[in-house]
């Protein structure tokens, strides 16, 4: 029995380790990011055409920023410019998406690539997050030397 207990503890620890050893090479991160961005294109037409009902809500961006800090910053970075686990939300792929497509992605996640579904947040909170994401300044483009322009 002790052996079984030991095996279970070992498996639990293995689960912790297995899930948290992402390939952090830049090419692997870029590939993962592109997969997540590509997921946006899979949003059904009806979903992409949805308008943000909180577009005119003056508090939506601030509320979205609070939700972002609570739920998203861990993976996407405190400034939403990307981390080891989540892509930059300032990238063109995100900023040029429709609010409806972003809402769809938030709702459905990209489960195979580590982004959970966020339908546990009520719809208005997901729209608040969309408002915040759309309010972000786009990422600066790298110039010929590979450094980012201000």
């Amino acid at each position, binding site marked *: 029995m002790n052996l079984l207990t030991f095996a*279970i503890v070992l498996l639990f620890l293995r689960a912790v380790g297995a899930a948290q050893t992402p390939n952090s090479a830049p090419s692997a991160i870029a590939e993962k990011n592109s997969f997540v961005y590509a997921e946006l294109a899979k949003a059904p037409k009806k979903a992409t055409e949805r308008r943000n009902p909180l577009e005119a809500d003056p508090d939506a961006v*601030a*509320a979205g920023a*609070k939700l972002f800090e609570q739920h998203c910053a861990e993976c996407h970075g405190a400034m939403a410019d990307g981390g080891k686990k989540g892509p930059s939300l300032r990238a063109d792929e995100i900023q040029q998406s429709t609010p409806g497509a972003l809402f769809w992605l938030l709702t459905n996640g990209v489960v195979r690539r580590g982004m959970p*579904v966020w339908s546990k947040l009520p719809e208005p909170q997901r729209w608040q997050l969309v408002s915040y994401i759309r309010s972000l300044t786009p990422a600066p483009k790298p110039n010929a030397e590979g450094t980012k322009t201000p």
Partner: protein
Amino acid sequence: MTYDHYLEEPGSLEVEYFSTFGTQRAGNDFHAFWAEFEYGATAWWTTEVYLDGQTTFNDSTVFTGFRWENRFRLLQREHFINPVLYVEYEHISGADKILKEVEGHDGNADSADLNSESRQEHKQELEFKLLLSKAFKGWNIAQNTLATKNLANEPWEFGYAIGASRPLALKASAKRCSFCRENFIAGVEMYGGLGDRYSFGLHDTSHYLAPVVAWNLPSDWTLRVSPGFGLNDNSHRFLLRWGVSREFSGFGAAISRLLGDR
């Protein structure tokens, strides 16, 4: 306890202390408790370890065993109904009273024995659940069907849990706050046994109805309280469940760094 289809966020660890106070129709009241370590292994797999114990008043306090629970999201995206497969291994003694779920012909009388006697019985069980859940206009509606097999050649036992819950406000407020309405979730659940393979049905089973309130603090602490009321003579008259949990985001990344992945 009714599960919805939401799993722990990948890389996050939730540590919870959960307590159940139960009245006993014939015998001493009890206080059962568990420590839970829930980890989001991936976006589709959550794994948890529970350590159980209980105090029976005018008797003793005993450690009653452990459980290893796993939940697997079966579909990649959100659907009309979202299924999650739940698989749990339990190694507990007969003195276990945490009543995390009610199965088979579980009833009030099962908890009446003295700890010194009931802890002599050791059980290894496999428990399977199909968790079905749906988000609808701010509500979460969930239904769980469970089947348990005691590995000591006992028949399959069955049970159910259904529940609905909703935050008190659907929009988040712009400021960080502890007492905002969106931080409170209220709901109700009903759970009970459905007999076993040889006597399936409601005969000689116990059932409970329980309102549930949860309070999510911005500091990643959560408090839960749920007074449960037995619905028939076979049930405990009253169960008071409460729990406090703390989520540690980025736990997996911290472990990973500790193990040398920089």
